């Protein structure tokens, strides 16, 4: 249920503007990989190229190669829709469907794969909500609107919705930036549990969070405003935070810029 991602020579554009340049890296299965770097350095853009969400924006395109185990995600004839079913995404702001109940939100992705029985849906919904550590809080109000939950609960609902379709990889774009510290802690605990099953990639602005949850960390930076963002270095998280090999990484981690 977890696959490796291998990226080589990846560029991403918004129209004529090159947002990220020449990124190559390997993301290991059953581990948490954190992307850190100053705002505008392209880490979110890069994350969105990994499940072909980048191209949803008009004028956006990608050059280079992304391999999920042996499948080329940008190969000819590959349907972005099926890529997104394999690689799920959690967004910066919790975005449950406002017109749907908690139950329907979790079941939304399931129903895309055709008709499935009510009992099977019930089972997956419970399993996913348990998986997202939300079951005990919502089991008595599954038919209440998802928008009525707190921010942290909504974000866990989005994670439940995501894991309900059983993806190989979970991409998280600053999943805690809109949450309070306690909700953040709940999500971080959840990430640590989920990495047994999924390949997880998380973008974060919070250095402590990267240090707490991730196994490997990648630092992105851009040479100057208007220049494309690049991968500066990537290593074991412990090594990155104690003994980075690049001066820029050390400066960023110790808070000298960014």
């Amino acid at each position, binding site marked *: 249920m977890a696959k490796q991602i291998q990226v080589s020579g990846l560029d991403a554009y918004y129209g004529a503007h090159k947002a990220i340049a020449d990124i190559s890296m390997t993301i290991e299965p059953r581990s948490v990989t954190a992307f850190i770097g100053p705002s505008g350095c392209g880490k979110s853009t890069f994350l969105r190229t990994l499940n072909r969400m980048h191209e949803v924006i008009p004028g956006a395109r990608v050059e280079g190669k992304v391999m999920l185990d042996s499948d080329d995600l940008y190969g000819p004839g590959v349907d972005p829709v099926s890529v997104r*079913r394999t690689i799920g995404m959690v967004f910066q*702001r919790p*975005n449950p*469907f406002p*017109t749907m109940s908690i139950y329907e939100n979790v079941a*939304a992705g399931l129903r895309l794969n055709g008709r499935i029985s009510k009992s099977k849906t019930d089972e997956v919904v419970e399993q996913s909500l348990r998986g997202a550590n939300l079951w005990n809080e919502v089991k008595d109000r599954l038919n209440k*609107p998802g928008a009525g939950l707190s921010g942290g609960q909504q974000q866990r609902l989005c994670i439940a919705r995501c894991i309900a379709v059983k993806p190989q990889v979970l991409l998280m774009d600053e999943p805690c930036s809109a949450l309070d510290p306690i909700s953040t802690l709940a999500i971080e605990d959840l990430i640590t549990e989920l990495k047994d099953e999924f390949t997880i990639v998380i973008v974060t602005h919070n250095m402590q969070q990267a240090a707490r949850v991730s196994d490997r960390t990648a630092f992105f930076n851009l040479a100057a405003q208007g220049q494309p963002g690049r991968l500066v270095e990537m290593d074991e998280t412990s090594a990155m935070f104690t003994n980075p090999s690049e001066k820029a990484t050390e400066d960023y981690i110790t808070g000298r810029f960014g």
Partner: protein
Amino acid sequence: MAAIAVFLIAEAIPALQANNSSFLTELLWTPNNTPPVFGIGALAFGTIMSSALALAMAMPVAVGVALFISHYAPRKIAGALGYVVDLLAAVPSVVYGLWGVIFLVPFMQGPSEFLNEYLGWFPLFSGDPVVGRSMLTAAIVLAIMILPIIAAISREVFLQVPRMNEEAALALGATRWEMIKMAVLPFGRPGVMSAAMLGLGRAMGETIAVALIFPATFGITFGILGPNGNSIAANIALGFAEAGEVGRGALIASGLVLFIITLVVNMAARMIIARRSGASA
């Protein structure tokens, strides 16, 4: 509103007292005869029937156009198309009416006979004779008239769907159409319903376009292909100039009924929207 209602009631009462028949159920409209006989039955039926038909025809097309503009068309085409739709909304109704009489009435003869021959078992398409100047033709003209306003409002509503909800659906592996079903249509439903009610209100109040087309008969028939049809507004427009004292009062009474029908439709729509959004918000 209250002042209008009071005016209508005050003007209508003398005529209603002079009436020699039941105003609510009588089909005939001869208020200038002695004794005067008139009733709202056929007119109210024609108004509701033609508007409902128009709405049923316009809704799918309007929502489709709105979705195409908001979510499918490339930006340039969407802009141009949106402009055309807005422009259509500004065409005076008499122009639609004339187009209906001069072009659509002769044109509809063939398709109407076709419908009657092959789908005649269905009550709406049954009956004899079949003519071009029918309830169906009037409803088509009404549908074309209300389409731009429904499409324009629906488009605005669809454009307001939060980007993050659409992305949530796409990231789950939804195709564009699945994303629309999952995120856009549920979010837009109350707005689209208000657009429909606005369109329905306009169709019911429409006067000159249907006055030109309706054969101005007084009867209730479900066959929409025959030479039948009339509406309250059209009847007022056609009859007001030559009406006597009782006749004017009678027409004003019919206006009052139209006023009540539109009020009821609007309130029903509001209740539906409130219940829907109350259940889901």
